[in-house]
């Protein structure tokens, strides 16, 4: 994972399990706005930097 942060580290900061981080990364789970904000805060980025609405999602 970027910035030397492991999935386990990110999971700990966001208060979820590592499996949830894996599921979000692989697009198998859509996080709530709250979790998306927590992930962005943990990674010190904005939400739209890590999540995007693809044409497939928009349809």
């Amino acid at each position: 994972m970027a910035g030397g942060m492991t999935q386990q580290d990110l999971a700990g900061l966001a208060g979820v399990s590592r499996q949830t981080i894996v599921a979000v990364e692989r697009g198998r789970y859509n996080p709530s706005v709250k979790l998306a904000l927590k992930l962005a805060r943990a990674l010190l980025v904005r939400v739209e930097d890590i999540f995007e609405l693809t044409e497939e999602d928009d349809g």
Partner: protein
Amino acid sequence: MDSVKETWKEQAMGRLRRMTAFHWTMAGICLVAVILGLALHPAYLLLLVLPAFLGPLVREIGFVKDQDERVRFISYRSSHIAFYLTLAVIAAIFIARTITAGRSIEPEWFIILITPVAYKFFAALGLTYDTRTLALAIGYVVGGILAIYTAFSGYFFTPQIYIPLLIILVTVVAHWLPKLSGGLLLLLGAGYLVMITKNWDPDNPLGLILSALLLGVPVLLAGLLLLFHQRMAGVASEDFIEEIPGETEH
């Protein structure tokens, strides 16, 4: 080979360390059920069903708060599937009894089908609006159905009509005095449960369970909802007020 064994052991120990008091309680119930089932009577193995009910229940009422929203989501989704599977099983029993066996269906079977649907409807109502609206809806619907049932059973001019009329009256009062009505509905629900339990026919336990689930428990629940009125989960809360990096820096 040793390193693989160590990894497996480490993983097992890691999983054990992550077990909460809730998990240990569930594991304890299962162990007791197996011991009692093997030592005393196989009927005790039915206790193994308890964790399946208790798990989602304690999560729904907020007793156990999963921090992981994906786990909550999976729990809700699987319970949703189980709900429709239960209805499908009941519908299959209906079809098997009527078409295949050519037997008539007793009213209890229809109530078995209606009970989960009614609970789902009222749960959705509570999540959409608030607990007070849900309590009022329960009061009017249960009171109304019981009044109609009592009237059609020929008990309209007997003291038996007092219970449904009281439920409706107390529900009307709840518009102005919710706490008082909550306490009264709690008493009415508890009273009704005591009444049907005292007149319980041992040959018809299904009748007692269904009367309790469709009439006694909802009234009791309506009382609790009025007494402890608050917005339920599903309605937006304002608990996320921390600053987000970048949002405040301009």
